């Protein structure tokens, strides 16, 4: 067992597609929450294996895409300061702020570095005691424990030159916002597997019951996604609305308790604005007062910085499943991965970038 290749098996995928065809009697619209799932669906053409009754909408689960323009502008302002080493996951560097992106600041000489983990930024802070090392802490619940661990460790070590610019978001408040919308088109969700590995499935029971919507925790490979779709469609056909776990090889109902303890120690719930969508109450994580000394926005006095986003970008509609990328007038014309108007075209997990990459210029990898 290698835990990856097995789940890309074409025969298994065809069996599941056939099971879905046999199960479906009516039209159903499902939303996969996570951008990693969207990427797999479009890359492997899984939507094209499904019967015409089953439609997939691509959800808001790409943190690169939903980080608000104001926080990108704050990142740009901090990164441009002399004496700052600004560390980020690579896919944030091309996300446009209101005027430019981190690459532009880097090209003018700013010390902007791509790291793989917040622990790499922490190591840099130890190596460069004369510089301010700032980590751009974006992400969903999946990424929060690693960021919390880095901050807690910085405090243990007394590393005064380390701080984080926080733009953490949480999945359940976003699902609540989508379900409560008068424009709701979603009949069932494929919940984000790695978010649930950390947080467990307990937060989803009340959502499933309140809105009578099946929620199937699903992994990321083709066989996983098709099995998640089968479980979700089976619930819909049978009139059930339960939380089910397709990703049982990793996700436990209670989630990972040490990870939750780290998040609870360092972060607290805050209101957060989502790019393209707007403010969602209680949808973010911010540093607790005990860790305020590690808050880069405060340390560098940029809390008030931030301009508006491009009016031509309709990513908010895409992120809520109300618009398919190819139906946007700017798609592939004014907006391409080289010249993105908005973040859904930047991130490799953004729905617009996935369609641009796999549906326009590259053949779909057949299963």
């Amino acid at each position, binding site marked *: 067992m290698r835990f990856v290749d097995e789940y890309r098996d074409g025969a298994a995928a065809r069996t*599941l597609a056939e099971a879905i065809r046999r199960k479906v009697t009516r039209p159903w619209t499902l939303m996969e929450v996570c951008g990693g799932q969207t990427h797999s669906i479009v890359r492997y053409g899984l939507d094209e294996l499904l019967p015409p009754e089953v439609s997939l909408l691509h959800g808001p689960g790409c943190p690169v895409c939903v980080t608000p323009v104001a926080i990108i502008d704050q990142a740009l302002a901090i990164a441009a300061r002399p004496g700052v080493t600004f560390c980020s996951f690579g896919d944030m560097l091309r996300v446009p702020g209101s005027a430019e992106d981190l690459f532009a600041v880097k090209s003018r000489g700013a010390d902007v570095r791509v790291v793989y983990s917040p622990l790499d930024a922490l190591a840099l802070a130890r190596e460069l005691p004369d510089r301010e090392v700032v980590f751009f802490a974006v992400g969903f619940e*999946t990424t929060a424990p*690693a960021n919390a661990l880095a901050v807690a460790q910085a405090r243990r070590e007394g590393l005064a030159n380390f701080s984080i610019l926080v733009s953490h978001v949480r999945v359940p408040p976003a699902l609540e916002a989508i379900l409560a919308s008068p424009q709701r088109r979603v009949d069932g969700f494929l919940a984000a597997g*790695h*978010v649930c590995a950390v947080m467990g499935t307990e937060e989803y029971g009340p959502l499933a019951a309140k809105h009578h919507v099946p929620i199937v925790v699903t992994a*990321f490979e083709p*066989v*996983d996604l098709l099995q998640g779709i089968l479980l979700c469609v089976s619930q819909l056909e049978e009139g059930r609305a339960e939380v089910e776990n397709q990703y*049982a090889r990793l996700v436990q109902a209670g989630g990972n308790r040490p990870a939750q303890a780290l998040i609870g120690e360092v972060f607290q719930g805050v209101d957060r604005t989502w790019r393209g969508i707007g403010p969602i109450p209680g949808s973010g994580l911010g540093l607790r007062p005990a860790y305020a000394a590690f808050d880069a926005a405060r340390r560098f006095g940029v809390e008030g910085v931030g301009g508006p986003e491009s009016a031509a970008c309709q990513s908010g509609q895409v992120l809520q499943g109300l618009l398919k990328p190819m139906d946007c007038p700017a798609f592939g014309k004014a907006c391409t991965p080289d010249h993105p108007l908005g973040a859904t075209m930047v991130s490799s997990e953004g729905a617009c970038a996935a369609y641009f990459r796999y549906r326009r210029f590259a053949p779909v990898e057949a299963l």
Partner: protein
Amino acid sequence: MCLGVPGRILDVQEGPLRLGRVAFGPTVKEVSLACVPEAVPGEWVVVHAGLALERLDEAEARRVFESLAELEAGWGERP
């Protein structure tokens, strides 16, 4: 962004960060095993942003394929 990569633990050094080497195919990286305190060398974990999120359960991993066999058995002849 929430990409998680399965890897096999090679060794662990106890400490606040519980660092250990994890093999992802031919690539070996140092990651924190702080959130999987019971994980030991030889076990598989899913790693995200330098932190192991959880251990992989091999029996559950096989169950996906057992359920496929049950589906096909229920159909009788393949269509």
